[in-house]
Structures are given as structure tokens and as C-alpha cells.
């Protein structure tokens, strides 16, 4: 029996999927692992539910399906995702290109059965694969903690600093280690963060000013003063001219 989790903001759409699952039960036996009515609810309820397949509407309030899938991919027991959409040409094209499975609403029983069989055989979609299919930047960064996904709103992030295998994510009140590459983060959130050093991205909005560093060390001529975080971060010589321009632009 495949344990299926259903995520859709419209009640009739969830009912319809349950009906169809019953209809195809002889061919593909399934059980309901849980339901959610918006993106954030999926991230709260799915971890630990034992869901193997997630039927995920892509247009949901709170957080869209594609971003939900990207956060879920962090889970060690991430479910296989089958996206469901009424009409979204761009998303469908992205799914095709990145070999992600999807169903079109209204869903046909035969298509659903085929998707479930395929999902049971295959594994969860990879993070890279999902990132390529996503059209925009995420609104949250996430950390997986056993049966839980911790979300950090991107607008709360003060800086991101690469240290060996991980990136340290710093908000005013918290610090997390995330498994992402600084280069990819810089590309995804271009405009929101600015590079001040080979290993560090800083939120533009959080920059309060610059002050002279103690000198001596080659790269530590200037330090960034940040809103809400006491730590001063060194600016590399290479990034300084671009930063100075940015400072001039700021009102």
C-alpha cells in the first residue's frame, strides 16, 4: 500500500483526488497519510507522517508547490512528489524539462494510477532538479531537523557565510547551518544580498555603514556594520569599490 499525502487549497479538489484514489485502489492500493490546505501546512504536517507520495498542487496560498517540494527534499525520508496543476504553462514546461512528474486538473483516474506506480518505483526528486524547475527565488531557506523542517524567511537573513562544507545563516536572533553553495545562493537571491568577501553575502537592507578595521591584515581594511547583529564583517579589497558605490546609492 502506498501512503499518499494530498495538498490542495481547494476542498473539492482534495475530495476529487480521494475519490479517484478509491477508484484505482484495486490497481494501486493506497492509504491517506495526511492532507494540507496550503504550502506551509504541508511542511508542518508531512514530516513524520510516513507519506511516500505527495500529490502537490502548485498554486497554493502561503507557499507555492515548487518551493514546498524544495524544502521537503531536505528530509531523509522525502516523499516522491507528483505535482498537480490546473493550468500553468511555465510550470508544465519546467516539469517536462526536468523530468518531474505532474498531473493536470481535472485528473484522470488512469493517469493518476500510472503516476502512482511510477512514483512508487522511483525516488524523490533531487534538490538540483527542483531548483532548476523553479522559476523564482524561494521565500524561505530551510534546515531539516529529524522530523521537522525549520523555515527561515529570506527577508530575516542578515548574512550568509561559507565555512567549509556548510553555509552559516545568521538572522538577528538565530544561527543555522544550511547545506547550500554560496554561489548558488548569490545567483538565486541576486539583488537582495551583496557579496562583501569571497566567503560572505550580506543582506543589502541590513547594511548600516562601514567602519575602518584595525588594519594590519591585508583584507580587513573596512568592516561592515549591520543592523541587529553586533558582529562586524570584513570587506575584501576586491569587493570594496562595488560596495562603496552601493553605499552611495543608499538613501
Amino acid at each position, binding site marked *: 500500500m502506498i501512503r499518499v499525502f494530498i495538498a490542495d487549497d*481547494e476542498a*473539492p479538489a482534495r*475530495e*476529487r483526488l480521494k*475519490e479517484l484514489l478509491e477508484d484505482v485502489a484495486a490497481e494501486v492500493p493506497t492509504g491517506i497519510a495526511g492532507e494540507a490546505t496550503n504550502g506551509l501546512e504541508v511542511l508542518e504536517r508531512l514530516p513524520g507522517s510516513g507519506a511516500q507520495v505527495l500529490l502537490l498542487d502548485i498554486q497554493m*496560498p502561503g507557499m507555492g508547490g515548487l518551493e514546498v517540494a524544495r524544502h521537503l527534499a531536505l528530509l531523509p525520508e522525502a516523499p516522491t512528489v507528483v505535482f498537480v496543476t490546473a493550468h500553468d504553462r511555465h510550470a508544465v514546461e519546467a516539469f517536462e524539462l526536468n523530468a518531474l512528474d505532474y498531473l493536470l*486538473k*481535472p485528473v484522470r483516474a488512469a493517469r493518476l494510477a500510472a503516476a502512482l506506480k511510477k512514483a512508487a518505483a522511483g525516488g524523490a526528486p533531487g534538490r538540483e532538479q527542483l531548483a532548476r524547475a523553479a522559476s523564482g527565488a524561494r521565500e524561505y531557506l530551510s534546515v531539516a531537523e529529524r522530523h521537522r523542517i525549520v523555515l527561515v524567511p529570506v527577508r530575516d537573513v542578515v548574512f550568509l557565510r561559507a565555512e567549509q562544507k556548510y553555509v552559516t545563516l545568521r538572522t538577528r536572533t538565530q544561527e543555522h547551518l544550511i547545506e547550500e553553495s554560496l554561489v548558488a545562493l548569490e545567483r538565486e537571491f541576486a539583488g537582495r544580498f551583496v557579496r562583501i568577501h569571497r566567503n560572505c553575502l550580506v543582506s543589502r537592507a541590513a547594511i548600516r555603514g562601514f567602519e575602518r578595521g584595525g588594519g594590519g591584515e591585508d583584507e580587513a581594511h573596512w568592516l561592515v556594520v549591520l543592523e541587529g547583529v553586533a558582529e562586524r564583517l570584513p570587506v575584501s579589497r576586491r569587493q570594496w569599490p562595488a560596495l562603496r558605490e552601493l553605499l552611495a546609492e543608499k538613501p
Partner: protein
Amino acid sequence: MSIRQKAFSDVLPDFRNLGVIARVLVAVNAAAAMGALFAAASPAQALERFVAMAAYVEPLLLLTLVALFLLSPLLQRISYAAGFAIVLAVVAALAALYQGLLPLVVAEPLPDAWRTLVLAGVIAAAVLGLLRLVAKAYSPALAEARLQALQARIRPHFLFNSLNAVLALIRRDPRRAERTLEDLSDLFRTLMAEPRQFVRLADEIALLERYAGLEQLRLGERLRITWELDAAPSDALLPPLVLQPLLENAVFHGVEPGTASGEVLVRIERRGKRVLARIENPYLEAEQSRAGNRMALDNIRERLALFFDAEARIHTHVADGRYRVEIEIPYRAARA
């Protein structure tokens, strides 16, 4: 879809329309200003001449506009050529009368009578020609094309989700499924209808209610609509699909993207000679990136201008976390 090319019908402008009156005022004064400029040696002198000329021209102009305002219903019924002749005759008669009466009021010497007559006639003919060009640019064929652009804009997302919702109803509540399909048919009949000039407000309200029923089915308790229609004049005429796209926007931008339930207000009322419609929805900050709002709004604004010229107003504003669209059109009743 082909665009029906309706032949442009020559009708004199409606001299009771504010837009037409404004254009006449501007055109005649522009002509006077040009005249002053031609005859003057310096800008200061031109201004002086223009002021002097305006003092002479303005009373005649206003007199003429009043006469045309009164004659407007008659002028609408007769042929363009006859109307043209009547307008010229009215202008000439008034100019002669004005020329004759003026010496009784002012002592200053007046321009020659023949010059006044010829100039008044030439300017009147030129202004009529100008108005005819404007009317041509604002012709029904254009209004039709704009309407069709709006009709073609049905959101596929809405259609497929509605069909999906009906499928979910068929086994559990077949009667409601039937009603929903009927509503969907009515909505699409309107969206695919041959373009019409005007519909009755009662019909547009029925369309709103059908549409709201479909959205209600999909969104359930998340959508709460308050209707304030007691003072709505059901016989008022308005261009088709003016209100429904606005309600659709309200749901699409103000309710669907939110996790909490959202309240939409639809209020339509008559105030004297005006019909006011207001549609309000929650203003969702994060929603501003989603496209599609402007297109319907621009389209409706354009069509209201085509139908009512300067007498219709549409504006939007955000206050207290609510997004509000207000439309104001002149009240014109359908013939019973």
C-alpha cells in the same frame, strides 16, 4: 475570432456630453489664440489681443453651446448633412444676433459683421470636422475590439479548477453539480457572446452572482462576499463585462493567494444621475508581483471612455489594508 467591422455611422456629436463640450471650448479658443498670434508682433501683444478677442468670442461661444445643448436630441435624429447645416445656421443666426445686440451693451467699436459671420461659420465647420474625426477614432468597431480582447482573457486556471470542482460534486451532490454546470454555461455564454454595446445592470449583476457561486464552490469559507445591491438601478445601461472582471480580480488577487479567509464587498448604487459601483478586497502585500491585474483594469477604463467619454470615472486605491476599485458612470435607463 473575426472582428465585425461595423460601418462607421455619421452622427453629429452629442452636445450634452461633457467631453464634446470640453473639446468645442478648447478648439474654439485655440483658433482664437492662433488668430491673435498671427496678427500680433510680440508674445505680449498676442496675449493682449487674445484677451480682448476672448471677451468678444466667449459669450457667443457659450450662447452657441447652450443652443446646441437644447437642440441635441433633435440633432441626434436627423441625417449628418442636415444636422451640419442646422448647426451652421444656428451659429450664423446667433452671431448675427450677437453682433446686433452687442452695441446696446458696450460702447467699443465692433468688428465688421461680415467678418464675424464668415469666421464663425468657418470655425464651426472646422470644429464639426474635428469632432467627426474624434468620433471616428472612438468608433464602435474599436469598442468591440477592446471587448473581444477582454472576452479572450478567460483565465484557464479558473475554468479547469471549476470543472474539477464540478467533478468532485457529481457523486456526492448531483443537483449542486447540475446547478454549477448551468452557472458555468451562463458565464461562458456571456464571455463568448457576440459583442454588444450595452447590457442592463440587472444582467451584469446576475453574471456576478453566477461567477461568485462558482468561486464559492472552489474556495468555500475562504471567500466571503458582501453584496450591497439594494440601491442598484437594475434598468441602468452599461457596457458588458465591466463589473465581472473586477470581481474576478478581487478574488484572484485578494482572496485566493491568502491563507486566511478574505472579505469581498460589492456595492452598486444610484446617486441621482450617476451609477456608482465599488468592489473591495483585502490588499495582500506579497501579491503585488502577480501579473494580470492591469490588463482588465486598463481595458475597462478604455471601454468606459469609448462609451461615456469624459463622463465615466474609474479609480483604484489602497487604504486600511483594502484594495478598492470604484466606477462611476452616468445613469441611462433601458427603455422598458
